[in-house]
C-alpha cells in the first residue's frame, strides 16, 4: 500500500513537473528583445514568415518602437537591446557618444531614390533634369539642385497645377535617415565630389537654405511615403525615400499597386548613396538579432517581399515579381556618404 502511494505520488509529481515544464518552456525559451527601428523596416519585422523563422529557428521575438535613425542614437535607450538605424553614420555617431557597441553588422542595403508622379516625371524629363534609359529613370542631381536653389516654380517646368517651387520632400535630416542621407547627397552635389570638413564650410549656407525652404518635415520615412501615396501629386510632388519602400508596397499590396502603377515613378539620383541598415546590439541579448536576421531565408524574404538588396541579392536577377517597372538592375553610380564628422556638422547646421 505504501509503495503504491509513493508510486502515485511520483506520478503526480511527474504530471505537475510536465505541466510546469510546458508552461516554462513556452514562456522562457523564446526570448523577446526590444529596440528602436527605423520605420522603413517595420514591414519586414511584422512579416509573419519572418517572425516564424525568428521564433522557430532562433527562439526570438523582436519587438520595437519606431524611431528615426539619428534620433534613436540620442534617445534614451534604457531597456532597449538594440538599435536598427538605416545607415552607418548612425553607427559612427553611436560610437562617438557611447564607444563601441556590443556588436554591429550591416543586415540590409537599399539605395536612396526619388519618388514622383508620372506628370511630374515627364516635366522633369522635358526640362532636362531627369532622363530615361531602358525604362529606368535617373535624375541629374546637379541640375535638380540648381533648379531648387534658383527657386524655379513648378509652373516654370510646365506644372501650373502645383503651387510653389521645386523642392524634394524629405524627412527631417536631423532626425531620420532618408532625409539625412539626402542631405549628404545634396552636400556631395554642391561641392562636386564627396563633402568633407575642408569643403563643407563653403556649402553649408546653401544647404541650410535648401532645407529651410522645406519648412516642417516628417520624422519618419514610412510616414512620408504613406503621405506621398495618399495625399496625391499636389501635396508631395517629389520625395526622397528608399528603393525598397515602393518594392515592398507593390509586393504587399498587389491590387492597389495595379491601380496606381501607371502614375507612380521611381527615379535614381545620379549619383545616389546606399542606405546600409546596420544592426547595433546594445547588450548580449540584443546580439541574437544579428545572426537571426542574417538567416538565409530571412535575407531572401527581405528582398522578395520587402525589396531590400541584401548580400546575396545585391544585383538581383529576379525583380519581375514586384511588377514595378524601372527597377535598376545594378546601382552603378554610387557616391560614398560624407564621413560621420562631416554628417554631424551637417546635422548641427540643419538643427
Amino acid at each position, binding site marked *: 500500500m505504501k509503495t503504491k*502511494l509513493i508510486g*502515485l*505520488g511520483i*506520478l*503526480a509529481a511527474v*504530471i*505537475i513537473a510536465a*505541466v510546469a515544464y510546458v508552461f516554462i518552456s513556452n514562456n522562457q525559451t523564446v526570448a523577446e528583445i526590444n529596440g*528602436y527601428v527605423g520605420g522603413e523596416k517595420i514591414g519586414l519585422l511584422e512579416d509573419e514568415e519572418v517572425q516564424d523563422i525568428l521564433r522557430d529557428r532562433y527562439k526570438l521575438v523582436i519587438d520595437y*518602437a*519606431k*524611431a528615426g535613425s539619428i534620433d534613436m542614437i540620442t*534617445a534614451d535607450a534604457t531597456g532597449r537591446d538594440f538599435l536598427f538605424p538605416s545607415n552607418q553614420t548612425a553607427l559612427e555617431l553611436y560610437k562617438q557618444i557611447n564607444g563601441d557597441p556590443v556588436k554591429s553588422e550591416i543586415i540590409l542595403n537599399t539605395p536612396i531614390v526619388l519618388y514622383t508622379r508620372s506628370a511630374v516625371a515627364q516635366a522633369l524629363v522635358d526640362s532636362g533634369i531627369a532622363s530615361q534609359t531602358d525604362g529606368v529613370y535617373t535624375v541629374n542631381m546637379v541640375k535638380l539642385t540648381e533648379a531648387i536653389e534658383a*527657386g524655379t516654380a513648378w509652373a516654370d517646368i510646365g506644372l501650373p*497645377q*502645383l*503651387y*510653389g*517651387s521645386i523642392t524634394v520632400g524629405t524627412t527631417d535630416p536631423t532626425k531620420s535617415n532618408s532625409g539625412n542621407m539626402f542631405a549628404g547627397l545634396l552636400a556631395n552635389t554642391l561641392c562636386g565630389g564627396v563633402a568633407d570638413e575642408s569643403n563643407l564650410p563653403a556649402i553649408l549656407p546653401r544647404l541650410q537654405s535648401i532645407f*529651410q*525652404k*522645406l*519648412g*516642417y*518635415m*516628417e*520624422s*519618419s520615412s514610412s*510616414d512620408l511615403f*504613406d*503621405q506621398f*501615396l*495618399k*495625399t*496625391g*501629386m*499636389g*501635396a508631395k*510632388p517629389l520625395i526622397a525615400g528608399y528603393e525598397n519602400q515602393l518594392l515592398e508596397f507593390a509586393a504587399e499590396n498587389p491590387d*492597389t499597386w495595379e*491601380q*496606381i502603377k501607371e502614375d507612380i515613378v521611381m527615379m535614381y539620383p545620379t549619383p545616389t548613396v546606399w542606405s546600409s541598415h546596420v544592426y547595433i546590439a546594445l547588450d548580449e541579448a540584443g546580439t541574437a538579432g544579428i545572426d537571426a536576421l542574417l538567416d538565409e531565408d530571412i535575407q531572401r524574404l527581405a528582398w522578395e517581399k520587402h525589396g531590400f538588396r541584401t548580400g546575396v541579392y545585391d544585383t538581383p536577377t529576379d525583380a519581375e515579381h514586384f511588377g514595378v517597372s524601372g527597377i535598376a538592375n545594378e546601382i552603378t553610380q554610387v557616391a560614398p556618404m560624407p564621413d560621420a564628422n562631416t554628417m554631424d556638422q551637417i546635422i548641427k547646421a540643419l538643427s
Partner: protein
Amino acid sequence: MKCIKRSIALLLMLSVILTIFGGCDFGDTDSGEADTVLGNGSSVLRIISGSENAELEPILEEFAKQENIRIEMTYQGSLDIMRLLGAEEIPYDAVWPASSLWLTVGDTERRIKHAESISITPVVFGIRKSLAEELGFVGREVSVNDLLQAIQSGELRFCMTSATQSNSGASAYIGFLYALLGNPEVITEEDLQNESLKTQMKELLSGVDRSSGSSDWLKDMFLEGDYDAMVNYECLIIQANKELEARGEEPLYAVYPYDGLSIADSPLGYVDKGDDKQEELFLKLQEYLLSEDTQDEIQRTGRRSGYTGVSEKNKEVFRSDWGLQPDRVLSPIKMPASDVLFECLNLYQTDFRKPSLTVYCLDYSGSMSGTGNEQLVQAMEQLLIQENARENFLQASENEVNILIPFNDGVINTYTAEGNGSELEALYDEVKNQEVGGGTDMYTAAVRGIEMLKEYDLSQYTPAIILLTDGQSGGSLYDFEDAYEDLGAEVPVFSIMFGDADETQLEELAQYTNARVFDGRENLTEAFRSVKGYN
C-alpha cells in the same frame, strides 16, 4: 489516492485561475469619460479623436458590432491631442488627430505605432453661395488675398476654430500668415516680428464671428446660428450642406484658396503599452477602415480616401454646384518648421486673435463645500495663472477682459480684470478666498453677466459666459431670456455640469444661446480647459 485527488484539484484550480486571467480584459478600465460609446462588447478600444470623425461613427459602430467589442470615442481638438501625447500616461488605445503633423510633433516619447492615414480632406472656406457669387468667388481660382480683401472690406465675416486648439483653425491661420507675408517660400522666425503683420492679422481675425475648440462643433454651431461663412474641412462643408439642403436653406460654396490650402490626413495610430491583445484589436480596426468597402463608405461621407482619388460613383457626393472639386490637385502650403509653428501659435493666442471677454459665473453654494470647491479652485488656477495657461495655449492676450461673478442664491460679488497681468492673477485670489454657503440660482448670475457685457463694444471681442454649477437652480430662465433679448447680441453661455447639476436646465441655456454643455464631473480642470478653447 488522496494525493492524486489533491494534485488534480490543484491542476484544476490552476487552470481555472489561468482561464480567468487569460480571458480577463486588462484594457478595460473606467469608461465614464467617453463622448460616445459604440457597440456593447466586453473588450474596449478607447480612441481619442478629432471631432470631425464623429461623422464616421456609424462606420465604427458597424465594426464594433461585427467584432462584438465596444469602441469609446472621446473628441478633442488636434492640438489638445498633441499635448496629451506628451503626458506621462495616455489613457487611450488609439489616437486619431486631424493631421499627422500634430502626431509627429507630439509623440516625443515615441509611443505611437502603426499610424496610417485613413482619409484626407482639405481645409476650405465654405461661403453662403449667393455671397460667394456676389464676391466673385464662383468659377475661378481664388487666392487668400482675395478672401482677405473681402474680409477687410467687411463684406465677409466668418467662423473658424481656435488656431491653438484645432487643426482646421491652425491650418487656416497659417494660410493667412503666408498671404499677409507676401507668400514667402516658408515662414521664418524673422517674418513673424513684422509689425505690419500684427496690425493686418488683427484686422483679419476681427472678421471672425465665432470661434470653437473643434471642427465638428463649429459645423454644428454654424448650423444653429446665422452666419455667412466658415473655415472648415471639405468633408464637413459637405455634411453641413446636406443638412442645409434638407432644411431648404441656401448651401455653402466651397472655395479652395490656391495659395493657402492645407490638407488633413487623419492618421489613426496605436498607443503602444505592450498589450498584444489591444494591439491586435487595433490592427483589426485599422484594417477594416482601410479595406476597400469601408474606404468607399468613408468616401461617401465626403472624405477623399484610397490611393486613386474620388471614384466616379462617389463624385455625386462632391457636388460641383456646391463648389466642390473632387478632381482638383490639392497643392498645399508648407507648414513651417515646428519651432516656428509654435511661435505662430503663441502669437495667435497672445497678440493676433480677437481678445476674449469672458464672464465666469461660479457656483459658491453650500453644496460646493469641500472637494467641489477645491476642484473649482484648481481648475481656475489652470486658466488664470498664466504660467499654467501657456502650457495649453490658453494664455490671455493683452486686451482681454475677464469677469468673475461668484454666486449662490444671489450674486455674491463681481470682479473685473483687464489684460494678462497682475489683475488677472489677482482674480485667482478671489476665486480661492471666496467662501461657500447658501442656495443656487445660476440665472441671476447669468443675468448680471449679461448686464456687465452691455458696457463693452462686443464686436471688438469674442464674448462668452462660462457658468459652473453643481445643483438644481432656483430662479427662472425667463428672466435670463429677457436680459438676453435686451442685449441683442449672440453671446454663448457655456456651462460646466458639476455635482448634481440639472442637465436639462443647462441644455436649455446652451440651446438658447447656441453654446454647449461640458461635463465637469469626471475632470473639472479638463472641462474648463475645453470650454476656454471656445473663446
